[in-house]
C-alpha cells in the first residue's frame, strides 16, 4: 500500500480522527466537534470533508462503523477505532513527534544563528 500521508492535510485529518476516536466511539458530527475542541478551532475544515476521510479509513481497516442510538434517542452511525487503527495512531504519533522535534530543532537553530 502506498504511504498514507503523502497529502499532508489529508494525513493530518486522518490522524486527528484517529485521535478523536481513541477516546471513545463517536458519530461523524461528534468527531468533527471533538477535533474542533481538541485543536481549539485551529483547523478550518469544511465538516463535509470528514466523510470521504472516514470512508477511506474504513477501507484501510483503521476504523469500523455501526449504527447506534444516541443519547437523544436518534439513530446515528458511530465509528470505532480498530486494533489496526490504534497501531496506526501510535505509529503516526511517534513519527509526528520525531518530525516535529526535528523541525523544531532546525527552526530554533536557525533562529539562534540568525538572531
Amino acid at each position, binding site marked *: *500500500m502506498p504511504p498514507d500521508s503523502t497529502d499532508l492535510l489529508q494525513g493530518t485529518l486522518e490522524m486527528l480522527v484517529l485521535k478523536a476516536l481513541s477516546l471513545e466511539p463517536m458519530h*461523524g*458530527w461528534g468527531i468533527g466537534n471533538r477535533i474542533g475542541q481538541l485543536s481549539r478551532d485551529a483547523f478550518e475544515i469544511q*465538516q463535509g470533508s470528514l*466523510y*470521504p476521510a472516514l470512508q477511506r479509513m*474504513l477501507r484501510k*481497516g483503521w476504523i469500523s462503523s455501526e449504527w447506534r442510538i444516541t443519547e437523544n434517542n436518534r439513530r446515528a452511525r458511530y465509528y470505532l477505532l480498530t486494533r489496526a487503527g490504534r497501531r496506526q495512531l501510535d505509529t503516526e504519533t511517534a513519527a509526528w513527534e520525531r518530525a516535529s522535534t526535528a523541525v523544531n530543532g532546525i527552526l530554533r537553530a536557525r533562529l539562534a544563528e540568525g538572531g
Partner: protein
Amino acid sequence: MGVLSDLRERLRALVFRGRVERDMAEEMRFHLAREIEERVRHGATPAAARREAQLAFGGVEQWKEVTRDARGTRMLEDLVRDLRQTWRGLRRSPGFAATVILTLGLGIGANAAMFGVIDRLMFRPFPLLRDPGTVHRVYLQTTYQGRNSANTVFPYTRYLDLQGATTRFAEYAAVSEWRFGVGGGGEDIRVRKVAGVSASFFGFFDAAPALGRYFGPAEDVVPMGALVAVISHAYWQGDFGSADVVGRVLKVGQLSYTIVGVAPVGFVGTVSGGTPDVFVPITTIPANLGPWSAGDYFTAYNWDLTEMLVRRAPGVSVAEASADLARAYVRSRAAARALNPRVLADSLVRPRALAGPVKTAAGPQASPEARVLLWVAGVAGIVLIIACASVANLMLARVIRRRRELTVQLALGVSRGRLVAQCVTESLVLALCGCFAGLLVAQGSGVAIRSLLLPEGSAFNLADDWRTIGVALGLAVACTLLTAIGPAVVATRTDLATMLKAGARDGGRRRSAFQVGLLVLQVALSVVLLAGAGLFVSSFRHARALPLGYDPRPVLEVISDYRSPTMSEEDRATARRRLLAEASALPGVEFAAAINSGLFRTNTAELRVPGIDSVAGLGRFNFQMATSEYFKVMRIEVLRGRGLEADDRAGAPRVTVVSQAMAEALWPGRDPIGECIHVGLGQAPELGLAECTTVVGVAANTVQQAFADDPMYMYYLPMEQLAPELTSTMLLRMSGSKASAEMERVRLELTARMPGDGFVVVRPLQQIVDDKSRSWRLGATLFAVFGGLAFVVAAVGLYGLVSYDVEGRSRELGVRAALGARPGAVVRLVVGQGVRLALSGVVIGVAIALAASRWVEPLLFQQSAWDPRVHGAVAGGMLLVALGASLVPALRSMRLDPSIVLREE
C-alpha cells in the same frame, strides 16, 4: 488486514449500493441536524442556524460525490448506475430503442454476414493446414496483347519444371480436381468429387489419417502411380458406415483403386468448391481418363492438368519466392518452346509468377462472383455508416431534448465526464443489442448468401464462428463511438447559466450544423446505394431478358461415361450411337442430338474465307458440332436455307450453317447460301482447310458464349460428317415445358442401358444458363436488399429528425399560428425545410454515383452507369420519401392549439 477491509468495503459498496447510499444520506442529514441543534442551543435563530450549518458543512451533494470516490468502486458503480439509467431511459422510450436497435442490427448484420461469407471464401485458411501463412498457390501470369491472365492450372510437366528449378521452397504439391463416377455394380454409382494429389500434398497438413495411411512418394510416380485411394471422413461415415475399409477396392472413374486410408474429420484439402470424397495419386489421373493422355502428360506441355501449392522455406519472403518461381517459369517456357516452336516469345507475353493466396477468390483472377461480393461488402459498409449516421442523429435529437435535465445534473455537481460516460453507456448498450440482433440477421441472410456463393455443403453457422462474432462486436464498439460523439459533445458544451435561464422553451432546439451534416450524408449515401442497386437490377433484367436464341427450359444435358479404358474407339462409337437412338426413343423425349461441347464452352478452329484477308481480325468465330436434330432440340430458328440433316455424313460434301451475325460479318449485303468457308477441323485439319465447306443455311443468333456483349458469330457443323464416333454429350428435348421434373427418370433409364459400370449424368440446360448469370443475380439481389435497407434507414432518420425538429419548434409554430399564419403556410415551411435538406443530399449522392460509375461499369450488363432513368428514379424516390417524412410531423404540428403551446411551462 488492510486488504481484507478494503475488499469488504468495496464489496459492500457494490452489493449493497442502495443501503450504502441511504446510510450516507442519513448520516449527513443527521450531521446537519445535530449542527443546527447545536447552533440553536448557542442562541442562533433556527433560520440562521440552518444557513450557518450548511456553510460549515459545504455542499452536501459535492461531499457525497467525493465520498463515493473514496469508496474505490467508482468505475464499476458508475457503470452499474449508467446501465440502470440507460435501461430506465430506454424503457421510457421503447420506440426510440427499437428503432436504434433495428437500425444498428440491420447495419451490423449485413456486415457480419458479408464478412462471414468473404472470410470463408477468401481469407480463412483451409482447416488443418499447417502454418498457413507460408503456404501459397502458384499463379503463372502473362500479358499478351495488353490482356493479363493468371493461370492456376498448368501442365504437369510445368509443375515438375517449377519444382526442379526453384530453391526457395520447402514443400511442393500438385492438386487436380475431377468429378468421377465412384462406386460400381449398378445403382450406387454416384458422381463424386475426386482430387488427384501428389503424395507430398498430405505433408502440408497437420492431420494424421483417421484410419490406415496416406499414400507415399513411391506410389505417386510417372508415368503411372499406384492405384491407391484415401477417402474423406464424411464419405467413410456416410457410405461405409465407418467400417474397416482399408484394403477394399473402390472403382473411381475407369479404374479400380485400393483404399489405403481415411482422412481425418474436417480434412478438405485445398479445394475451394466442396470437399473431395476421394484422394488418389495425381499420376493415376491421366490413365483414368483414357489412353490418349497417359503417355506424355509429364513430358509435354499440351494439357493443363494440375494446380500447384508451395510452402516457402523459412526466411524466404513472398517477393523472393515469386521471383524464384518466375525464373523457373521462364526456363520451363524455354523447354516448352524447344518442343513446340509456336510457344510465344517471352518478350511478347512477359511471363511472371506469383506465390499468391491459396484461395483463388483472393487471387489475381477472382471470379466475377468474388468481385461482386467485394463490391457488396463495400455496400454493406456504407449501409452501416448510414445506420450510424441515422442513429447518431436520433440520439443527438434525444439528448438535445434532455438538455435541461442534463443542465440540472451539471448544476447539482455531476461532472461533465460523467455525462459523457452516460451517453457512451447508452450508445454501447444499444449497439450491443444491435450486435445481437445483427448476428441473428447475419445468420439468416448468411445462409441465403452462402447458397449463392459458397461451395455446396459448406456450413454457415455463426454460433461458433468467433471471427465473425468478433467482427460484429468490433463493429458494435465502432458504432458506439460514432453514435456517442454527437450527444457527448452536446452534453459537455451545455452552458449552465444560459440553459437554466432559457428553460425548455428553446432548450437548444435549433438544429445543429452537425445534425444537418449527418442527415445530408445519410441521404447522399442512400442515393449512391440505390443508384447502384438500380443499375444492378436493371443489368440483371437485361441479362434475363436477353434473347438466348434457343429455349433451354425443356432441355436436358446428358453426359455418358462408359468407365472402361479398354473399350475400343469403334465399340465406343457404336455404344454412343445406340445410346442416342435409345434416348430419342424414351417416352417424353421429343428430339435428341449429340453435341461436341456444352453450352458456354467455346470452340474455335482455324477459319479461312475467300476474299477476306484475316477472318480472326473480325472477331472470334465459334463453332458447335452437332447431329442433325440439334436445331429442333434447341429450337433455334433456321432463317434461310436448311439446318443440319442426317444425310450430311462422312463422304458427303462438307456443309455448315452459320449464324445471322456471322453471315452479316463475312458477307455483308450478300446471300450467304452457297458461300464457301475453310475450316481446319476434323480428322485431317489440313484437308479441311483445303476443302470448301459450303454454307447451306442461316440460323438465328444465339448466346452460346460468355454472356458478355458478344457478337455471336457461330457456325454449326454436322457431327456425323466430321466426328462420326460422336461424343459423350447429348441434349434431349422433353415434351413437357420443364425438364427438371423428368431428370431423375431419364437418368435411371439411360444408366440402365449403359454397359458394365457405365452411367450417365443428367442436368437441366436451364441450370447452366442460370449459373452463367449468377454474378448479376447475386449483385442484383444483394444490391437491391442493401439499397432498400439504406432507403428505409435514411427515411427513418429523416422522419425522426424532422419530427423532433417540429416538436421542438412547436412554440415558434404556435406563435406563427397565433399571429395568423395559415396552416398551409406552416406545413409548407416545415416540409420545405425537410425537402431542401434531402435535396442537397440527393445532389451530392448522384454526383458521387456518377463519379463512381467508371468502376461499376465493368460489372454491368448492357447497362450504362450513367443511365438517367436509374438516377432520376432514385433521386425522385428519395425526395418523395423526404416529402413523406416531413409531411407527417408537419401535419401533426398543424393540429397544435396555439393557446396550449404558448401557455406551456
